[in-house]
């Protein structure tokens, strides 16, 4: 059985081990004090809410071991105690300095057995005391974590990217009229410098029609010229569109020939 003291319901002090623990973390997070500091704390706790003189501390901590120390050693030991309490998470000032008198422990002290103070896992889940800064942070984290998957800035960036893609798509969609007509034409062959593309799939017939039409009105091609021949037996007329390059290219220049017979007259 180990004697222990619960300080402000949050810190466990085990004199036998010269140790301080945060109760909810026990046995993790152990802070070990050197022996004189631990004895100073024990003496202050045993006289909690009462002034403890420097003389008493010197006598009970050092002189009984046959040691004589300076006042600074006493102050250093008290400083170690304060540092240890702070390291275990005690935010409040537990030990007050009483000028020209000594020290006073003002924390709420509960004496008992160590086992009595150890929390079970279920008790650990519910804080027994008012939340301090650290538990508050611990409570906040689970709320934040699910949102960390996509932070506001990332979400906005993603949204911007989508909007940009939509704008580009919108632009092309708006610009698009029916599919380019000549994209469906078949290559019929080369006649002199003319690369002939035809609405008719038969290459020989297309070339024959192209030659016949050229006889009616001369068509001269340069090396890159592309001629689009439309043979339309059911509708009005036949046409040839002669372009200086592929019509799908920007800046293409074209000239057309439109052939009609008297029988086509409306």
């Amino acid at each position: 059985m180990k004697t222990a003291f619960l300080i402000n319901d949050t810190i466990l002090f085990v004199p036998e081990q010269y140790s301080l623990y945060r109760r909810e973390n026990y046995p993790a997070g152990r802070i070990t004090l050197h022996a004189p500091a631990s004895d100073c704390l024990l003496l202050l706790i045993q006289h909690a809410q009462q002034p403890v003189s420097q003389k008493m501390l010197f006598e009970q901590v050092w002189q009984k071991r046959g040691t004589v120390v300076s006042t600074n050693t006493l102050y250093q030991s008290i400083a170690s105690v304060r540092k240890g309490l702070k390291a275990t998470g005690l935010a409040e000032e537990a030990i007050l300095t009483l000028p020209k008198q000594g020290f006073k422990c003002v924390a709420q002290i509960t004496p008992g057995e160590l086992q009595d103070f150890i929390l079970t896992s279920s008790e650990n889940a519910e804080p027994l005391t008012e939340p301090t800064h650290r538990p508050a942070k611990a409570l906040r984290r689970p709320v934040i974590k699910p949102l960390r998957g996509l932070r506001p800035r990332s979400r906005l960036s993603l949204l911007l990217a989508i909007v940009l893609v939509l704008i580009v798509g919108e632009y092309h969609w708006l610009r698009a009229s029916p599919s380019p007509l000549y994209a469906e034409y078949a290559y019929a062959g080369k006649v002199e410098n003319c690369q002939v593309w035809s609405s008719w799939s038969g290459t020989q017939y297309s070339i024959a029609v192209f030659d016949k039409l050229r006889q009616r009105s001369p068509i001269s091609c340069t090396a890159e010229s592309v001629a689009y021949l439309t043979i339309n037996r059911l509708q009005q007329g036949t046409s040839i569109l002669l372009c200086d390059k592929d019509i799908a290219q920007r800046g293409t220049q074209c000239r057309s020939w439109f052939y009609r017979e008297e029988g086509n007259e409306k």
Partner: protein
Amino acid sequence: MRSKNVRFLLNLLIVLVVISVALAGYVNWQKNHFSCEAQITLVTDRGTEDLIMHFHFSGDTGSYESKGKYTTRSGNEISTSNKIDFNFWREGDSLMMISNETNAIPKTAGSVYPYTPDFFYSRERGIRWTLTRENATGYLFSYDDTPTFYCSITR
């Protein structure tokens, strides 16, 4: 800093949405506001006419101007010209044009090219074209399912 970044991204998003809406408006506006030029040779068994045509579309009204030369089978050459004001509108891929004023020279309708649609020489006559955007700089005008001329956008 982070707050500033988020605010910046939000402002950027608003700007992009405005650009998107403006772009849609501009592209639609462009469809009814442009000018183009075409060269065509009309060939019949009576003769041939070479034409340079200018179209100007502005909202729901437009104008057409042409200059050309008609050559008969016997070799006679006649200069031709025309100027037409018209109303127009879009119906899907089609462009409907109704003539207001025409100024065909020679004056005798159909004397030069007998198969010309009456839109080109009479008032309040209609013509329907199918417009196909072949590339960024030109439309293909089709008449009765036959590609007739390619009009290069000039403005």
